């Protein structure tokens, strides 16, 4: 069969990030896949060396808008370790609560995007509406919906008042009920299951070999979660389950994320209950003494690692960031192997790619010179929805109506 290389991107509405993929097809089967990253490369690591530690907290927060607290916490943890600062317990709990709220908003975002990718747009609207509940709580706690600025070197900048704690608990109760409904939909609706099951398979062995992290890894049976294995913030004192699954496919990744949502609600309740009184931060020196530290954090997408080297001045010597999506991207080729083009959007979306974390972008290689087929992501997504409608009789319009009919 003739091989066709289809470049996709770098402009694509669904993922909101510029990247380019190169897909080599034989008919409709995917033979090879490669990603050209770099479109989001902003030179953050270099910029960190030219700014003070405090300025870097704000810069690092903006590596990614969805996991901004993840990067910010991971960074300040490293600096605090080098400086030998004992962060007060209350600050650790506040960081944990914000971290879990971020995980909730990220997973709900993902659920919506996943729905959109398969044509289940009502799921997008509903999950993003529920996400607004979390955004309101975060805005009330920190002053901003995104990029919270809650961390400072040595602790946190804002307190959680008893009233705010009550609001958080109320929000968690509401969301728990809604998440239960989404889990029901995910496990009972045939249309959705058919789109997600058996798609983007990544065996346990491959996941281990390729270095998968986060829900992508846990859906292939890898029992790994930085919050439990290498505890940071207040996680060492809280009890929670690590959700794994053995489906090895996109369906498994969906179940893992739904399960993690439920666990996040538990963690938040525990943290609010057990959070001690006390100061919010210790004073941090302007000049951080020479030293190095390696910090790890379980971001919604997986393990985020930061390495910081200090040289006794007020600017870091080196800051290195390895975001989770970079680790997971290497598994996508395996997942797409022997898959079909119609599954590409959901498979890529299922690793919950955050290219801005990764590039601080993907390019498509054009092998065929004559018949160039430049596909925009939106075209690919429409093709994918149409393919499943025509070839498998999967139509989300009924499900869309059913869900919209249910007055939530």
């Amino acid at each position, binding site marked *: 069969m003739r091989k066709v290389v289809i470049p996709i991107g770098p402009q694509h509405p669904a993922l909101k990030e510029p990247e380019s993929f190169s897909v080599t097809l034989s008919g409709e089967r995917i033979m090879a896949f490669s990603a050209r990253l770099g479109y989001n490369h902003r030179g953050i690591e270099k910029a960190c060396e030219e700014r003070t530690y405090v300025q870097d907290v704000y810069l690092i927060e903006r590596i990614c*808008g969805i996991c901004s607290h993840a990067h910010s916490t991971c960074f300040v943890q490293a600096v605090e370790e080098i400086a030998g600062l004992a962060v007060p317990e209350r600050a650790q709990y506040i960081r944990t609560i914000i971290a879990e709220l971020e995980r909730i908003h990220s997973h709900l975002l993902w659920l919506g995007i996943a729905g959109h990718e398969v044509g289940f747009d009502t799921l997008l609207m509903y999950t993003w509406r529920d996400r607004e509940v979390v955004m309101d709580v975060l805005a009330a706690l920190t002053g901003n919906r*995104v990029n919270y600025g809650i961390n400072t070197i040595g602790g946190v900048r804002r307190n959680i008042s008893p009233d705010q704690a009550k609001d958080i608990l109320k929000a968690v109760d509401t969301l728990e009920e809604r998440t239960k409904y989404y889990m029901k939909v995910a496990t009972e609706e045939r249309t959705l299951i058919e789109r997600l099951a058996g798609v983007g398979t990544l065996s346990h062995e491959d996941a281990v070999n390729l270095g998968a992290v986060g829900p992508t890894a846990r859906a292939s049976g890898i029992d790994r979660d930085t919050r439990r294995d290498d505890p940071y913030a207040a996680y060492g004192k809280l009890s929670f389950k690590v959700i794994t699954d053995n489906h090895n496919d996109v369906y498994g990744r969906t179940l893992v994320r739904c399960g993690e949502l439920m666990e996040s609600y538990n963690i938040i309740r525990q943290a609010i209950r057990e959070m001690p009184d006390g100061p919010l931060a210790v004073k941090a020196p302007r000049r951080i003494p020479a030293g190095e530290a390696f910090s790890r954090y379980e971001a919604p997408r997986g393990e985020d690692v930061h390495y910081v080297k200090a040289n006794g001045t007020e600017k870091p010597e080196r800051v290195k960031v390895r975001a989770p999506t970079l680790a997971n991207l290497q598994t996508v080729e395996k997942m797409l192997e022997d898959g079909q083009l119609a599954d590409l959007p959901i498979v890529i979306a299922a690793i919950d790619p955050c290219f801005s974390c990764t590039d601080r972008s993907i390019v498509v290689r054009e092998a065929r010179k004559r018949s160039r087929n430049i596909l925009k992501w939106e075209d690919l997504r429409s093709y994918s929805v149409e393919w499943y409608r025509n070839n498998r009789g999967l139509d989300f319009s009924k499900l869309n109506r059913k869900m919209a009919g249910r007055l939530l």
Partner: protein
Amino acid sequence: MKIIKRIVNWARIKSPWILHFNTGACNACDIEIVAALTPRYDLERFGVIIKGTPRHADVLVCSGPVTKQIKKMLKRIYDQMPEPKFVIAVGSCACSGGVFNGCYNVESGIDKVLPVAAYIPGCPASPKAIIDGVVKLLSILESGAPLVKVKSSLPLGMKEEKKK
């Protein structure tokens, strides 16, 4: 001719089709732009529709500080849009580079590459601010005030002012 122009203008105002493009941003603004379309904020009630292709779009909604890799793509997308077209810069990065101002690999702002009709600051720009910016642009269009139009044959960044 004047009547046709007014009808076309009315259609554009009543239902601007927008194209969203991220030029290397952290996604915060992009997620807020998408959030502007979800039920809480519902930009669609203003007739705004997000289109997937530049050839059908009236307004280019851009976030991000423009990385060097994406600059060419950005210009190409802008060129593919039919006239008249407008660019909205969403977020501090798109307006001036934001926190990334001065970083290597970054142009520090959309207006270094394209003429911008509206700037929406914020880090990220909240959905309310985005709606405000879009509605303000629509009202300028409605009033028929002089527009800054750019001929794509001119070098990047140069503009020629044309009075209506």
